[in-house]
């Protein structure tokens, strides 16, 4: 495949090289994307581990812990029925909300890194321009 492609989105002047992706004045470098990707992967797999642990603990208790399905604590509710019919949904809502919030923050971090690099670039250009002016005035 080619080393440079264009995004299918015709709304932006997009170029994607192996080292960076540029959409208008916004740039993602592969180094920055890799840094944020690692954090994102850690976040997703940590939440994924908690999700699967909780989800699979329910059948584990159901199979091996009689108290879980035998003892009622509120009318006919056993812990097993209460968790599967009600509490599990609250767990999903809270987890999805907190995860989305944290993932949004990582998106913002990538944007921030781009902004910092652009600022650094601008400062560099200003310094170079200033140095050029100084040299000019010195001569």
């Amino acid at each position, binding site marked *: 495949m080619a080393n440079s492609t264009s995004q299918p989105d015709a709304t932006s002047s997009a170029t994607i090289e192996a080292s960076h992706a540029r959409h208008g004045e916004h740039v993602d470098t592969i180094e920055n994307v890799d840094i944020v990707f690692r954090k994102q992967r850690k976040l997703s797999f940590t939440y994924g581990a908690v999700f699967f642990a909780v989800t699979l603990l329910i059948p584990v208790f159901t199979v091996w812990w009689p108290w879980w399905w035998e003892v009622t604590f509120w009318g006919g509710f056993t812990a097993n029925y209460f968790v599967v019919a009600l509490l599990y*949904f609250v767990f999903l*809502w809270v987890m999805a909300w907190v995860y989305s919030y944290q993932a949004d923050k990582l998106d913002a971090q990538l944007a921030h890194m781009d902004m910092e690099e652009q600022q650094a670039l601008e400062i560099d250009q200003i310094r170079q321009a200033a140095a050029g002016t100084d040299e000019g005035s010195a001569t």
Partner: protein
Amino acid sequence: MNTTAIVLVAALVTITIGLSIFSQRFTRTTTDFYLAGRKVGSFTNASAISGDYLSAASFLGVAAAVYASGLDGVWYAAGFAGGFMVVVLFIASALRRFGEYTVADFAFGRFGTNRMRLVSVFCVLIVSLFYMAPQMYGAGSTWKVLVGRGFLPSNDAGLFLGVDPVYLSGVIVVAAIMMFYVAMGGMKGTTLNQVIQFWWLWLAMFLVVAFAFGNGFDYAKNLQEASDGQLVATTALTATALTTPDPKTGVTPLEKAKGVMTPEGFAEVEAAVAKNDPVAKIPVVLPAANKLHEVKLLFNAPGHRYNAFDQFSMVLALVLGTAGLPHILNRYYTNPSGKAARRSTFWVLIFIGTFYIMAPIAGLFGRLEVFKQFFAGTAPSNAAYVDGYLVKSDALMPALGQMLGGQALLGIVAAGAFAAMFSTVGGLLIASASAIGHDVYEKYINPNASQRRRVYVGKTAVIVFALLGLFLGWVIPYSDLPNVYPALIAMMVTWAFAVGASAFVPMLLTGIWWKGTTERGAITGMIVGLAGSVGIIFLNILQQVGTIGKTGVFGFLGSLTFPVLFTFPAALLTILIVSKIDGKLPDNVDQIWLRIHGTASERHEKQHGLDKVGSLLGGKK
């Protein structure tokens, strides 16, 4: 069906068709036809995804499963909802950022070969057909229960083409409506319809539950009441089967029934047995066997449906399978950004979560109320009963509608059931059509086709797949599967989840999160997942119909009701091992990584206001 119900169902169909005709004016490009212009907001998209997801199996089936099986039925609700956590954590935003049209596009873009795209298209079609089959069978069955009339002739045996003509009439009507409305409206029309259909069925469930609370429902107290004594289940057996002793215990089913039925109810069963008809199946109430623990089974305890192995494999099939359903994944491309895709999934969890909390309440309330009203002589006449229990638990929701809110609520519930069918079949048709129209026609057959031509091919593909759905709806009862699997709709839905979880999810997970995944690894893993899950499902069918025995390798594999516990890890391991051995990464892997995990495109769109959610009725004319 009563007049109110007919009017409400007709109104729903009219709105559906009207919206499709209206949406057609705004469908000019393939992005409009397949992706609704990529500008569907989180709330709207979440409603449409929920409509896509909640089929008749959820609307009628979950409450019915709880009614029949208690706690094991509630597991369906929790598992169906839990599946979206896998989507939000691992797939939603990455898939959207990749910015294509279909799952096959992702596979091609990520791994870069045509064979990868074609294998993905094949998997999409297989998963969609697996999911279409129960929807069409559910359409015919629901039509039979709710409408009860057909327009097809019948022979001396009361059959048309070997099946019930009323059932087949329902399949034809639903297929025809779907064919028309999806082909006319494309994704925009389908999205608008799915939003309305979802909120209709959510409202129908809400009203049933609200009426239940209005009639004195107390969750904890009623659960205690329902769990006071052995759980019983209805079944239908021949006179011979009823009088044949169990080889282990020496007790006949008839003797067991005597222990749990009322004297009047049991007398009716005895009278039917006395006729000694070798073919007729006699409805009977039996104590429910506990498949999990060696104790008496109660309503609030596990063990009616699942043994220890199935407690795990069923949950994994549902939780992993959602992320492998192409018609659900395609909807993520309609979001304006990766962040919006995550937000949509959160709203989906709220919408379907509240729905799945209500469905078990309806099931529990029905368990008590149907019994009471049967003996009070006020139970609805539109359902069959044995000793105070519904013979077919799928009739619970319409029965509850009529008991709680009379003809009006029955009408709302009936329209809700059809809304559930329409919305899911609509999504499946779009997914199948995009696999052929976009992934095959536009990429290989005629890449230079005009937008008009491409949309035309997409519409033709919708019609072809609706006809295929019609065929599936006919062949299922013809093949006698409903007699082999008592809860066939739920079983077939779970099969579709298992195939999706095995064929797609390992490829998506590794493709998104592991740069080292190679094309050869992904393709081998998909084939292992697809072939393994489909093969085991067919072995299970062959075992159930008695073609193969229960011993040997095939016997063991055929005994696996839910194959995902084996096929998902097998596919995942295959991808990991083959990729490690292969080691041949795509040349442009860094560019791919920038597309999947970078956000420059979204920031650019945000800066220029291009990420704004557009009206579904906007677009090029």
